[in-house]
Structure formats: structure tokens, C-alpha cells
């Protein structure tokens, strides 16, 4: 039961596996960080260059969407073990919010 705490001593190979995994993760973090900065730069440049708002708005929204996903997967470990249900409910929520907003925008305010 909960109170018989079990102490686990890691073997050498387990230790190395964990170490390698962490190194990989670190690489992922840095790469996504770079991508995110790059996306932000594009956004700012587009505004600064004075493109048409009809072009800027959808592209910025798209890039924002990409950033959210990167953020969730690489920084908030959504792909990690045991996060399946969390991800599932997150996407259900996003889905419901999306069709709601879509419907309101198209049939109430259009």
C-alpha cells in the first residue's frame, strides 16, 4: 500500500539510458526554442514591412497555433508517457471551443 514506500536503486544501464534521454530532450528544447523565435521574428517583420492585414492576420494566427502545439509537446511534455488522456481532453476542448467560435463568427456576426 501507499505507506510501504519502495526505494528503487538504478542500475548503470538505466542511468545511462536516462542520461541519453535527457540529452535528446535538451536538443528538442533548443531546436523548438529556435523555431519559436524564428516564427516570432517572421510575425514582427511582416507587420513592420506593412503587408496587407488580410495576409498578416491569418498567418499570425497560424503561427500562433503552431507555437501553442510546440509549447505543449516540447515544453509541457504532452507526448510523455501517461499524458494520452490529458491530450485527448485538451483536444476535445479545443475542438468544441473552435466550432463554437466558428459558428458564432459565421452565423451570428457575419
Amino acid at each position, binding site marked *: *500500500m501507499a*505507506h*510501504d514506500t519502495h526505494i528503487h536503486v538504478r542500475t548503470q544501464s538505466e542511468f545511462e539510458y536516462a542520461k541519453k534521454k535527457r540529452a535528446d530532450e535538451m536538443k528538442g528544447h533548443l531546436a523548438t526554442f529556435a523555431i519559436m523565435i524564428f516564427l516570432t521574428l517572421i510575425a514582427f517583420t511582416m507587420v513592420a514591412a506593412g503587408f496587407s492585414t488580410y495576409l498578416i492576420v491569418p498567418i499570425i494566427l497560424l503561427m500562433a497555433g503552431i507555437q501553442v502545439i510546440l509549447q505543449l509537446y516540447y515544453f509541457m511534455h504532452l507526448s510523455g508517457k501517461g499524458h494520452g488522456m490529458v491530450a485527448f481532453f485538451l483536444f476535445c476542448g479545443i475542438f468544441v471551443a473552435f466550432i*463554437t467560435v466558428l*459558428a458564432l463568427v*459565421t*452565423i451570428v456576426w457575419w
Partner: protein
Amino acid sequence: MSSIAQKKGFGATIWDFMTTVDHKKIAILYLISGGFFFLVGGIEAMLIRIQLAKAGNDFLSAGLYNEIITMHGTTMIFLASMPLLLAFMNAIMPLQIGARDVAFPFLNSLGFWLFFFGGIFLNLSWFMGGAPDAGWTNYASLALASEGHGIDFYTLGLTISGFGTLIAGINFLVTIINMRAPGMTYMRMPLFTWTTFVASALILLAFPPLTVGLFFMIFDRLFNSSFFVVEMGGNTIIWEHLFWIFGHPEVYILILPAFGIFSEIFAIFSRKRLFGYTALVFATILIGFYGFMVWAHHMFTVGLGPTANAVFALATMIIAVPTGIKIFNWLLTIWGGSISFTVPMIYAVAFIPSFVAGGVTGVMQAIAPLDYQLHDSYFIVAHFHYVIVGGVVLGILAGTHLYWPKMFGTMLSEKLGKWTFWFFFIGFHLTFFIQHFLGLMGMPRRVYTFGADQGWDLFNAISSAGAVFMAIGVIILLVNVVMTTIKNERVGNDPWGDGRTLEWAIPSPPPFYNFAQTPLVRGLDTFWIEKMDGNKKGMIFAEPLGDIHMPNNSIIPFVISLGMFIASFGALYFLDGDKPWALAVLIIGLLITFGSMLVRSLKDDLGFYITKEELLEDAKGGKTDGH
């Protein structure tokens, strides 16, 4: 904590229920308060039918009639049907997955008390200047024009009880995801657990839009904002959207658990494994999914335009497909089974044609051009009573008979149960079948009276007569409950003799820790598998007997909810101008709520252990009781 059975005094029992965090006791609280509100809503229904029994009746005034239909609908949906279903979910679902309690016992209690105080608050409107009168859908133009505080009771009361329901839904989701016994994979979960799961997910996703709508409404009415005020640039249709984005999933929140109860009943009393278990599970998920894409079928006549109407009409018709799949699976479960017509089974068999009738009228209404004729007529009233009474209420009555022995350890009388069934069933069809024709003859819904020259007299009289039959059925049920409780003939683990799932493998009612040892699940219909293998214990165990960690009782959920209740009165009277005490009441209420939250956060509550020795003692027949 003592191992010796002790008889508690009345006061101690009340205190015990006020502080309990045990899902089985919270289930009883839900059952009692849901049952109480069911009676209140029933009395309102009788008043409506008396008023409409003859042409030009003046039993109720027009204004009072509006208040009564509003409170009837609101009470039946939010305060009766949902809590009664939550009662069965609480009582049975943790047992079905082999858990000792829900994931968050404290929150479970908080969810109940919020619902309870929200419901009481709403009903106090009767004694404090008049009930809400804009219909259970509370359409904004009507609601904003309504005088007095009725609508404010509606918005604040539903906000509080809505929080409670949301908490309950989240709690069940986490429980089902995290607390299943070893071997209880998703595709081995009993259907009632599955429907609880999907209904909880719908609660999680559907209640926020309602809360948003209610907040807008509260602000419009109490603080003079203008979300729905057209003259000020608001839009009254937005309330309708928000309400129905919640409202349509809400009807599935009601019907899915009822489907779950019926699925259990069909399997148990046909003595067969459910036909098409996988199809039933996926149909449930699909219904939950589609449920969010059809809300505008309540708004065909608003003028959304032909494209929007066509899209939503099509989406609505598609929902009938998974529903049909379920009906066929149930029929094939009965087919070739060795059927025993106990009371729950009679309800289940009667449910099929009743619900199908409601589904068929639903698809008719989904045809947008036809709905221009049907909308806001008695046809709609007939439709939703066929699905809600013929589906949800029959499910609740069936569940009451089926799970009574598991919840209370005594068996409701089968004979009286059959009387209840026949009165209720005949009364139900008598009342509502004829309303289809009233609708087709042009009788609008929500009118407080009609003229003698309109030709609706006879059908309305028949409809009112049917309501009397239903009332008699309910009264017999109450007599049944009282007699069963007085007789107090205790039953064993599996009183129906054909139980298939884990809840029937443990005593009725179960000990407060449910399972002395966590069971190991070897397949669908766990208990049935063990029975067929000749396992006398009814289950195999996943762990040796050991100490069990249990949560402590707490009064804090009650106090938090009480604070919200008090604060609501302050908010309600706050802007009246002539009531300076209102602000003080608001602040005191909020202080109570946040103060008790603070106490909860600062004070460690580590729970307690039931020792192995006490469990052994208990197994020998001494009765362990919690606090």
C-alpha cells in the same frame, strides 16, 4: 474508528451525512435531495395539468403559470434528473471499477453541497417575491424584461449548482481514468461506467458555455451591462446560442447514464453478455461527440439562413444513427436470452418503444422546413417528454429498483414495483401521446389557457387524466420505499442472482472501504466470469490484505457551499438601492467561503488507516464503521 457496531443517534447520523466524503453516502444524499426536487417538480406539473384540464380555466393566473412552467422545467432537468443520475453514478461506478472511493472524495462532497444549496436558493424564490418566469431556456429578451428578482434567483442558483455539477463531472473523469482496478482495461469497463465517463466529459465541456451565458445575464441584469440588449448594441441571439451549446449536450448528459443503466439491466436479466459491447461503447462516444454539433436545431426559426439550417439539420439526423445502433444491440441482447421479467427489466423493455417514439419525432423536428410548423407547439412538448420521461425517468425508476439493494441492503417490493410501473407507464403515454396531435392541431406551448372554440378541450382533458395516473404511480413508489425500509429484510451480495459486474461481488451495502482487497479483473463481466469458474469469493485479488488509507470526514465542503449561498442573497439584493445590508451579506458570504477554503489549504489532513486486524475482524462479522 471502532470495530464494534454502534447505533448512532439521530443528530449523529445527520452530522455524519453533513461531513461524509464516502461516495456511497454522498450517493444517498443525491438520491434524497434529487427525489425531493422530483416531487416538487411533479407537484408543479400537476398544477400545470390542472390549469390546462379545461378551456378557459382560471385555476392559475397567467403570470403564476409562467413561473410554474419555468420552475417545473428547471427543477426537473437541473435539480431532479441530473442529481438522481449522479446518485447512481456515485453509488455504483466506483464499485464497478473496483475502486475504494472516487479520486477526490472531498470535492465529491463539495459538488453535492453546491448543487444542494443552489437548488434550495432557486426554490426559495417562491417565498421571496416570485419565481423566474422566462421558461427553463430563459431567453434573454424575456429574461431582461422580467420584473422582480425571479430571474436573478435562476441565474445565481444555476451558477452555484452548475459549479457543483462541473466538480462532480471532473471527479468522475479522474476516477475512471486513474482508479480502475488492475486488469480493468477501458474495454472491460461495464457500460454504466462508460456512459458515466462520456456524460462526465460532456459535463466538463458543456457547462462552461452555460456559465458564460449566466455570467453575461447576471451582469446585464444586476450591473447594467448590455451583452443581450439590442438597443445598446448587444445581441439577444447570443444567449440562445450559449444556452443551446450547453443545452443539447445536456440532454445527452441525461440520457447516456440512463442508457448505461438499461444496458446493465438487459444483460443481467437476459442472462447474456451484452450483444455488441464494442459497438455500444463507440456509439456512446460518437453520440457524445456529435452532441456538440447540433445545437442550432433548437434555433431553426431564428433566421440563421438556409445554409446554417441545412448543416445543422443534417448533423442532427446523423445523431440518430448511433442511437439506432444502441437500440438494435439491446434488442439482440434480449434475443435468445433467458429472460426474467423483474421490475427493472419491465422498465427496460418498456423504455425501448417509448424512447424510439421520441427519437422519431426528434428526426422529424430535425427537418428544418417541417420544424417551422412544429416549433413552439405541443409537438415539441410531446417530443422531449417522450425522450426524457420515456428515456431518462424510466431509467431512473429502473435504476432505483435495480440498485436499491446495493445502496440500502433491502429489496423494494416487486409487486408494488409492478403497480408503480403500470400506473406510470400508462399515465405517461396517456399524457404525452395525445400532445403530438395537439401540436399538429396548432396548440402553442407555454400558453396558460385556451378557448373552448379551439377544439383542444378533449385532448387536454385526456392529457391531464394521464398525469393523475403518473402521480399515483409515484405515490405507490413512495409507499414501497417506506414499507421496504420498515420491514428491513437484509439481502446478500447478489440479490438479483444474476449480477455480472463487480458491485454484486461485495456485500449490500458495501463496507465503507468497498474492497478489503483490490480485485483483479480478468475480463468483461468480471463477477460473472468468477461465478462461472466456481470461485466462491466472487473475485480474485490483486494484493494481499493490508492496511487501507482512508480520507477523513470534513464539514468544510458544507461551509464553503453555505458561504456561496449566503453571498448569493447579497448579490441578488445588492443593486436594489434601498437595501444597504446587501453588501454586508455579500461580503460575509464570500468571507465564509474563502475563509473555509483557506482553512482547508493550510490545515494538513492526512486521513487515517484501517489496520489489517480491523479488516480481519470485519470479515468475521463484526461490523466496522467509519466515522
